């Protein structure tokens, strides 16, 4: 048995010794350096750009501009962004290329002999701009006085709206004994992966434009590069070296297209030299998308017995200047506002709104954290109003197998939220109400005033889809080779799936060893190269273990058939396609939107110093249904990582975006939790209720532990102080102000 063991990560030695090469480590003989020039204008029209002064800088070799991008448009879900801003660069696209809509819109790539020359060349570019009026946030953008995309025929910044119309709202409100209203504000969040964006590109001897970069989906990167540069896909090759974290932040393009464009332009000039770009931390924070800001107003009605009888909500998602994955994040937010609950009557409108701000995009949880912040705070407030235990009220409302989801279609089989909560309650001894022992250590030398410490406990739960949803094509390919004579001695896997640091490749090989039934030591793999592997889909949506596992099982079956037919080596290829999903009906939200889900519930224990507003998290209990833990240590790594990341979201990370500009693009100004700030203890409770479709029953689980953390902390803070907080992060000054307003501090 290899599945279920703590097999050592296949990349561990290289990463510990430093042998593993990340994109920023890559170089080559004769390499050129390039600098990406940002517009630094949240909304402006480019009047002119003169590259002559840049070319005059010693060492500058070439400048790539909009004119070099034949189809100057980019977008994962809709083409709404020019690859490069330039006066006469729109070409075949319908997105005007002469308008900067975001401070980090890219305008040119300056290529030089050294990085210093590239920087000097970038500074020397002469660009004339005409600043235009801003719609920098939701409040301004919703008025439509200034349009971010006037070329869009709908003539409004509110460009996508989703609706739920379920049951009979009047009947629901008539049944309600209590009504709880809330308006919630969710902040941006920066991915802050260890490795800022970087890459190396060249045109190989066969004329293939090759880009080595960190991403989450090699084939999607290839498709986007090929689209913008009008190249046949086989003429583009994308290879991922070691990836230093992703979390959704590498789903959209940062350097992929421009690196390819740079290599290609050099090639056309007869300069066949590789070119590299390495972003620093400030460029990374300014230059890639964020978790979305959101504002959500809602009203819930409940009967005295605790059952929720009506949910009304209106959500606004700040998409920023370009869609990226916003329309899909919006859908996830939309469908999680009602949580993992069986709600008969619901009326929900959710809107994505363009603003002249940093684009919102994929980030661990993908709309779930925003939607669940609403569902869980509302559920906890209803429990308070009815004087019910937060666990008990959930038991009354939870979804079960056979229930209809909010989309008025049955949940996919394997609904396990009740089992997850049972295990959480048991391990945490929730019913015991043990005293909470947490020290708030943030005042140096003095320590906290003991009389200022209040403690509390809070819980929240959530569901999250596994895999693509709502009709988006979903598939995953694997190729397996079996070697040996009389019996299978070795197996090899070729797979595109990205190991972004989560350990995916180790899990793949564990599943291969299990499927072939040979020891883990006898399997090898080669990964993440569009030239050698089929399309795996992305490392996102908590899908990769689930999808890759199914593809590996299928490919192994195929290879075994070939083996039985006498092939040596025996080759098997398989493309796994899960049951199809449907888009939501635009007026009612009806549809079979998911094929698999994961479930999670958390309890946190906190202490708050009411004199300073500092919140310390003691123990976190996280129960997550993983279906089957392929590698329990890696599961624990995902749980702990997700909770630390969620800790930053809930408590410390505050991105300041003003007039379309990020004001704190540094890690000294944007405060991710340090190792001394994280919870004192994280208890991972791996629940294993098999998913009917999952390989060995495995479910996706990487996003789930993030999702309930913020509302659980809010609930604990309420338990400690009696005060509800409807906005995060719970920084000391916000907590203190809230406590003061409530008369607690």
């Amino acid at each position, binding site marked *: 048995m290899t599945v279920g063991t703590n097999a050592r990560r296949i990349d561990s030695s290289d990463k510990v010794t430093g042998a593993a090469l990340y994109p920023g480590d890559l170089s080559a003989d004769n390499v050129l350096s390039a600098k990406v020039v940002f517009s630094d204008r949240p909304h402006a029209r480019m009047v002119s750009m003169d590259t002559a002064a840049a070319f005059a800088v010693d060492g500058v070799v070439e400048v790539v501009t909009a004119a070099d991008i034949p189809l100057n448009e980019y977008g994962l879900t809709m083409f709404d962004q020019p690859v490069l801003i330039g006066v006469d660069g729109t070409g075949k696209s319908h997105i005007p290329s002469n308008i900067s809509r975001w401070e980090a819109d890219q305008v040119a790539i300056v290529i030089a002999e050294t990085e210093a020359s590239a920087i000097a060349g970038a500074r020397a570019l002469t660009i004339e701009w005409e600043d235009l009026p801003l719609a920098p946030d939701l409040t301004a953008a919703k008025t439509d006085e200034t349009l971010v995309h006037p070329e869009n025929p709908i003539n409004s910044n509110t460009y996508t709206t989703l609706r739920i119309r379920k049951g009979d709202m009047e009947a629901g409100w008539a049944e309600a004994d209590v009504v709880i209203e809330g308006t919630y504000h969710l902040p941006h969040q920066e991915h802050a992966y260890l490795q800022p964006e970087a890459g190396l590109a060249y045109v190989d001897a066969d004329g293939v434009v090759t880009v080595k970069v960190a991403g989450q989906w090699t084939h999607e990167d290839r498709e986007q590069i090929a689209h913008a540069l009008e190249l046949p896909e086989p003429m583009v090759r994308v290879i991922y070296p070691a990836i230093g974290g992703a979390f959704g932040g590498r789903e959209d393009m940062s350097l992929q297209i421009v690196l390819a464009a740079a290599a290609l332009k050099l090639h056309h000039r007869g300069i066949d030299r590789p070119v590299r770009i390495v972003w620093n931390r400030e460029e990374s924070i300014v230059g890639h998308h964020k978790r979305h800001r959101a504002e959500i107003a809602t009203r819930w009605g409940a009967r005295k017995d605790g059952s929720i009888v009506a949910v009304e909500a209106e959500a606004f998602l700040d998409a920023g200047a370009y869609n990226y994955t916003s329309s899909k994040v919006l859908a996830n937010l939309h469908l999680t506002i009602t949580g993992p609950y069986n709600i008969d009557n619901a009326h929900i409108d959710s809107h994505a709104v363009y603003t002249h701000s940093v684009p919102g995009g994929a980030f661990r949880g993908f709309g779930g954290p925003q939607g669940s912040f609403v569902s869980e705070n509302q559920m906890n407030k209803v429990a308070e109003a009815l004087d019910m235990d937060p666990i008990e009220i959930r038991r009354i409302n939870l979804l079960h197998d056979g229930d209809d989801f909010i989309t008025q279609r049955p949940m996919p089989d394997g609904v396990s939220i009740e089992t997850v909560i049972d295990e959480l309650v048991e391990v945490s001894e929730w019913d015991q109400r043990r005293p909470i022992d947490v020290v708030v250590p*943030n005042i140096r030398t003095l320590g906290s005033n003991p009389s200022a410490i209040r403690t509390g406990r809070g819980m929240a739960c959530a569901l999250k889809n596994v895999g693509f949803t709502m009709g988006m094509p979903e598939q995953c390919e694997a190729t397996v080779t079996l070697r040996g004579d009389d019996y299978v001695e070795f197996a090899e896997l070729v797979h595109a799936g990205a190991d972004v640091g989560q350990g995916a490749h180790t899990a793949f090989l564990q599943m291969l060893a299990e499927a072939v039934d040979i020891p883990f030591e006898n399997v090898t793999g080669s990964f993440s190269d569009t030239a050698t592997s089929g399309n795996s889909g992305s490392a996102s949506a908590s899908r990769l273990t689930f999808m890759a596992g199914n593809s590996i099982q299928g490919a192994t079956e195929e290879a075994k058939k070939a083996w039985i037919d006498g092939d040596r080596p025996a080759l098997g290829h398989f493309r796994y396609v899960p049951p199809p999903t449907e888009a939501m009906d635009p007026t009612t939200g009806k549809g079979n939107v998911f094929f698999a889900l994961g479930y999670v519930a958390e309890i946190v224990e906190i202490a708050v110093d009411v004199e300073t507003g500092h919140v310390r998290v003691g123990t976190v209990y996280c129960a997550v249904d993983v279906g089957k833990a392929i590698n329990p240590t890696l599961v624990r790594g995902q749980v702990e990582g997700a909770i630390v990341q969620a800790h930053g979201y809930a408590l410390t990370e505050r991105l300041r975006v003003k007039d379309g500009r990020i004001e704190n693009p540094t890690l000294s100004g944007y405060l991710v939790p*340090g190792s001394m700030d994280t919870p004192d203890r994280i208890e991972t409770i791996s629940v294993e209720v098999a998913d009917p479709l999952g390989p060995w029953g495995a479910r996706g689980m990487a996003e789930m532990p993030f999702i309930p953390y913020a509302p659980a902390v809010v609930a604990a803070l309420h338990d400690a102080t009696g005060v509800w907080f409807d906005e995060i992060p719970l920084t000391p000054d916000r907590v203190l*102000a809230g406590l003061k307003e409530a008369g607690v501090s």
Partner: protein
Amino acid sequence: MASIKEVVRPTDLQDLLSIIADREVESRLVAGGTDLLLKYRTQPGPEISIVDITGITELGEIIEESDGLRIGAAVRLVDIIASDVVAERFPVLAEGAVVVAGPQIRNMATVGGNVCNASPSADTIPPLLVLRAEAQIVSASGRRSVPLDRFFLGPGKTILDRGEMLEALWIPWPTTGAVASYTKLSPRRAMDLAVVGVAVALWNNSGGLDARIGLGAVAPTPIRAMAAEEVIKGSVKMDSSLATEAAQMAAAGISPISDVRGGADYRKKMVERLVTRLLVDLGERVGEQQEA
């Protein structure tokens, strides 16, 4: 980034002073480099010469003199933290030094650099202010000494003229029975800047209690809360009502900015609370000193 023309590391103070007196060359002094290199990595600027002061032995020394302690400008924070004489006579300074950034930074950064960088939130400055430190300044044309509370002009700005450098910080031996402490509040528990830093020294003299209060991160420079000190001066005994009154005076006298670490209102409230608690805490200790 600014281009660095050269890095020089003189071993003789007079050589160093003649280099920085040279009007032709734009030079920047560096000791640990933990602030300077970060700044010049990103900010465009003229071509500069980096003048490393760590080659001059005496600048790295802590010297006990008859009337006080002399701390060379290139003494590292880790040296302050490890110093027996600092631990014995000026523990408040070590309390400030030990909460600057993290161990790697403290192994490089110097107390002179922390002072000359003149950050409003520098952790060693409020302790130095309450210890009545003096800045000993040297140039090719001579030496001068300035009380540290007149050294700072604004964020990153000091009274140092071109051609001058901080040679040492000099701290008089403390009054018998004096007690002092520094406390820092920051969003993160380590590797973070102060949202508020408070140092207090409290002692008895013939006319009753006396105090010095230094505040960080609440004004364009680290400051003394002199109005609060006046409230305490001459009082017979520190108690919570006196502490609160002084702390409110300290909070009333500041005009902090709002930034990622906290708003102005928050900083004022924290000054009030931390000054109160430090005064009460030190009031008990100064009483114990007297009884002993």
